[in-house]
């Protein structure tokens, strides 16, 4: 069990990073398809990263560097609290509550770092990002509360295990309501269109990333990939049963089981992600106030209704 833990601590961030990058690559390819073209090789983000790590752009001071690192570190820690398949290093304890805090570290670190660059687009981008986070954070909290009260646990691991026995929560009453709410805010959490107001290259020159170049950009891309992974992984764990396979099939125990579990998990992640890509490929970007307005209307309402129903039942 300890070996498993250590393996989890080592592998789950790695899996997270790699999946994040591959998903970014896949997203570019899928968007390209919708645009009637082939798109880059799926490994393109990796190539970009290698290149970026070789570049040495100027730094804008200590906070600039540390903020970025903090943001990345926050995301890595967050991954550790998420079960990736059956690799679940730290998530048996205070899982969900912790996540609500940790999920804010990413944007905050970015804000810290970006604020050092004197570019006005950065501050606009950061304020947009924070406004957007506030937009979905409440709904996310409502959803997490519903899940916690339904399963009566704050451990994600337990939530997943419960689903593997009782069926996925997305398809079970009453958790389908917060599940839908989560699906509605998922693009905002991932920061993809129509909610990519924070980076919005055509409006504010990619916002917080304006001053990043070379390795800074590489780190922020890693962080971006990770947070995409986290957003989806959380959904898969909470609503799509994590590693579990529908029906009466059960994964074998042991290393093979862990491995297969990770594969199943990643397959679900990829599926949810492709839904998001389709959405992002077929919508223009919203204005920030429109985005917040949207987030606080339907998703928040559904989330609230979901919580009420869950706690009432």
């Amino acid at each position: 069990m300890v070996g498993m833990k250590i393996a989890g601590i080592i592998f789950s961030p790695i899996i997270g990073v790699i999946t994040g990058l591959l998903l970014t690559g896949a997203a570019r390819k899928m968007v390209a398809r919708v645009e009637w073209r082939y798109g880059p090789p799926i490994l393109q983000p990796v190539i970009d990263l290698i290149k970026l790590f070789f570049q040495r752009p100027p730094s804008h001071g200590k906070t600039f560097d540390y903020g970025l690192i903090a943001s990345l570190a926050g995301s890595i820690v967050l991954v550790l609290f998420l079960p990736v398949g059956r690799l679940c290093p730290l998530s048996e304890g205070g899982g969900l509550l912790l996540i609500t805090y940790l999920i804010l570290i990413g944007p905050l670190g970015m804000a810290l770092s970006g604020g050092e660059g004197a570019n006005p687009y950065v501050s606009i981008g950061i304020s947009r990002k924070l406004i957007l986070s506030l937009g979905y954070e409440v709904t996310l909290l409502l959803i997490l509360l519903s899940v916690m009260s339904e399963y009566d646990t704050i451990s994600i691991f337990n939530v997943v295990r419960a689903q593997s026995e009782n069926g996925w929560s997305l398809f079970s009453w009453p958790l389908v309501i917060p599940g839908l709410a989560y699906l509605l805010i998922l693009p905002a959490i991932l920061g993809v269109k129509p909610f990519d107001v924070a980076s919005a290259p055509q409006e504010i020159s990619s916002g917080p990333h304006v001053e990043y170049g070379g390795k800074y950009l590489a780190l922020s891309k890693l962080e971006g990939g990770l947070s995409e992974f986290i957003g989806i992984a959380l959904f898969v764990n909470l609503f799509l049963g994590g590693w579990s396979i529908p029906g009466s099939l059960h994964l074998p125990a042991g290393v093979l089981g862990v491995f297969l579990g990770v594969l199943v998990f990643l397959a679900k992640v990829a599926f949810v992600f492709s839904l998001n890509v389709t959405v992002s490929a077929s919508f223009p970007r919203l204005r920030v106030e429109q985005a917040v307005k949207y987030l606080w209307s339907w998703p928040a309402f559904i989330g609230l209704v979901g919580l009420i129903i869950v706690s009432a039942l």
Partner: protein
Amino acid sequence: MDRRQLIKWLKEPLKMSNKYSLHVVYFCTGCGIIEIPPSITARWDAERFGVKPVATPRQANLFLITGYVSLKTLKPIIRTYEQMPAPKYTVAFGSCPIDGGMYWDSYNTINHLDKYIPIDGYIAGCMPRPEAVFAGITHLWTLIDEGKADGYKKYRRNYSQYRSNQERLYGELGWPPRFETEGLENE
């Protein structure tokens, strides 16, 4: 990816990643820009080779100077070029940056761009077709492979000459010199 390429990747990751990850500064300097959208969209799709426009010069390593350069544009061009992290490459489009092109006698466009910033490749045409843009990229690949795409090093080596040429155009420039001393720096 075949084995030869894999070995190349392992041996020279810098060159290879630079080759296949050319991020373009999106700066419409002249009319050649009209052929960039076709190149990056459905018909020709430059992203197959990892070429894509990015929002800021800090994220870019390829500067496509698309056509004639007016005096007012040259200033941001120099600024943008200096902001890009090394290694960085420049490709100039069409006749105008070579010898003035259509606007050889215009009082507001400069004739020889290489007097002010180094250029790694010129593409003939007025304007170059999207295919020529691709050919420009393959040309750049060859140069990177051979280690000849060293415009940024040249800029560093001869910075005082470039700077003095720039100052002859504009008088006092609004920003301090990029490099204090001259000499080859492996940036």
